[in-house]
């Protein structure tokens, strides 16, 4: 049970965490020395950066010997991860949806309906028979949430 995680993923994650720690440490160096109390604003960021880097190194050293042995397990477990691509695609579509709203390209109502229909269609295995239901659901949900937020909570959606 313990070593089911892909060691390469673990290594990439830990390298990212080390880089993040270096960045935090670098910016913490720019903070002024403590004046009114012994620790100062930089102490915690510096301490956490060092601790996290050391812990990440431990995970990396533990993961390296597992790279070769993991390959077989990966093949056995492929059926568990059934649709990772779908998850990534929907994540990207959601980012685009947020971008459209943030940069005022389209209003919430049209973009929301298109967004909901698109992700609903993808999640129903692009089944055209289900598309009218997905579309109907998208309209009802988007319009009702628009009115609830604007009329009931007095929050202007884009």
């Amino acid at each position, binding site marked *: 049970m313990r070593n089911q995680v892909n060691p390469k993923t673990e290594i990439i994650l830990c390298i990212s965490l080390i880089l993040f720690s270096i960045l935090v440490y670098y*910016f*913490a160096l720019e903070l002024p020395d403590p004046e009114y109390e012994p620790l100062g604003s930089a102490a915690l960021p510096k301490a956490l*950066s060092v601790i996290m880097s050391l812990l990440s190194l431990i995970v990396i050293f533990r993961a390296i010997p597992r790279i070769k042995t993991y390959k077989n397990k990966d093949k056995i477990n492929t059926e568990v991860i*059934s649709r990772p691509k779908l*998850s990534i695609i929907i994540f990207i579509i959601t980012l685009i949806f*947020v971008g459209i709203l943030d940069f005022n390209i389209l209003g919430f109502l049209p973009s929301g309906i298109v967004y909901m229909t698109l992700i609903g269609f993808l999640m129903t295995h692009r089944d055209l028979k289900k598309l009218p239901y*997905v579309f109907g659901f998208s309209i009802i949900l988007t319009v009702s*949430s628009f009115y609830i937020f604007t009329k009931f909570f007095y929050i202007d959606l884009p």
Partner: protein
Amino acid sequence: MDQLLNSFNYLFQLLPMLLLFIGVLLGIVVGSIPGLTTTMLITLTLPLTFFMESVNAITLLIGMYVGGISGSQIAATLLRMPGTPASIMTTFDGYPMSQQGKSERALGLGITASFVGGIVSWVFLAALSPPLAKLALTFGPWEYFTMVLMALVMLASLSQGSLVKGLIAACFGMMVHLPGVDPSIGQMRLTFGFESLESGLSLMPVLIGAFAVSQIFKDIINIDAKPPNVNVGRKKMMLSFSDIKKYSLNFVRSSVIGTWVGLLPGIGANIAAMLSYSTAKNSSKEPEKFGTGHEPGVVAAETANNASIGGALIPLITMGIPGSVVDAILIGALIIHNLEPGPLLFSTNPEIAYGVITAYLIGNIIMFGIMMFAVVHIAKVLYVPRAYLLSAILMFCVIGIFAVGNSFFDVWIMMIFGAVGFIMERTKMPLGPFVIGFVLSPIAEAQLRSGLMSTEGSIEPLFTRPFAATFLAISVISLIWAMYSEWKRSRELS
């Protein structure tokens, strides 16, 4: 006592009662759907509570907490898929009972056990909280710092997966809280040149991203998984008096275990259920029957996981220290409503402190009623098409977060932490220490620095003040114990 009665009086009004009912019902429904967690429901509801009075908001969230933990037994019993980790132990005997055609009996036992666990732990909550809050008033910065340290270490050590990953998650959570104004001297730090980071990262986008968005993407991966059809009737659900008498010892023992395990910082309902289940098994005359559809197994697991909620609420309202991830979010809810979690809550906002206590009791009673009479219908929720459910939740995450701060910066942060949470889950890095690190790091830093200021840089009080020394000792022992257990496990595996 007067405050408690006042609180009951308030709760029996229409709006708070309605909110509590809705909270419990939603909690049960969401808890019963594998993949959707109580944590997710509570984080998603937080933005909506902005528009409510603080007492009503907390009442609603407590209802969700109680309902969520209890509702998770439905899928655990019928499908062997625990709605939340709290019901993992229920699958061991609940599911075999269901397979033997005794679904109603298993659910009846589980519901009654949850109710009894809730009521017993409420007694502890109501009796212990006021004196504990008084004691906590004597605590200084060193006690608070070591208590936060203890919560973090215990959660990291007891999280699923490795200790190192738990500690990384805790450190990462603390680091995420660093940007913005330094809580002690008001110095701006680590904004990386972004103006939006000057006020720091808000709790809501980080929480919703890490728990709700990441969970949605995790569920999308397994969207093809369909639950098998099961039939549940309503007969044989209510336990007889002789049943209650038969399991009375198990009820009391599991309630006490659940409450005390819940009381320890960082330990959740799943550990409580596990400990209670193994105690029931070890003290049974027929231990070999456990795991085959044995009724005492369901009773032990369900009593303890519900009792742990009451236990976990004790450090929350008396000291502002979360007993579990959901409690950390509840602390976040209090902060959002400009309330200060901790011992002062009883004197400054008694309606909130006692509101939690009364809502927990009434929530359990409502949970029992709803589950007993509507579990047949609630079980049908298991078959709601995931495509509709997940897309709706994703949409609510986006507009909910936008609504809280009227800012798309928060929505981007939510998406980033959705990805972070997803990657952490995939690499088995626990999210619990991350969120508790995020919520508690400002308290830990401010208390440590204030302590050091008062002693002119000396850390002597860590060893000379009895409570601080005890909390520190517990932290060190937990860490050493976790390291030893991990070393022992790796030796066994090799």
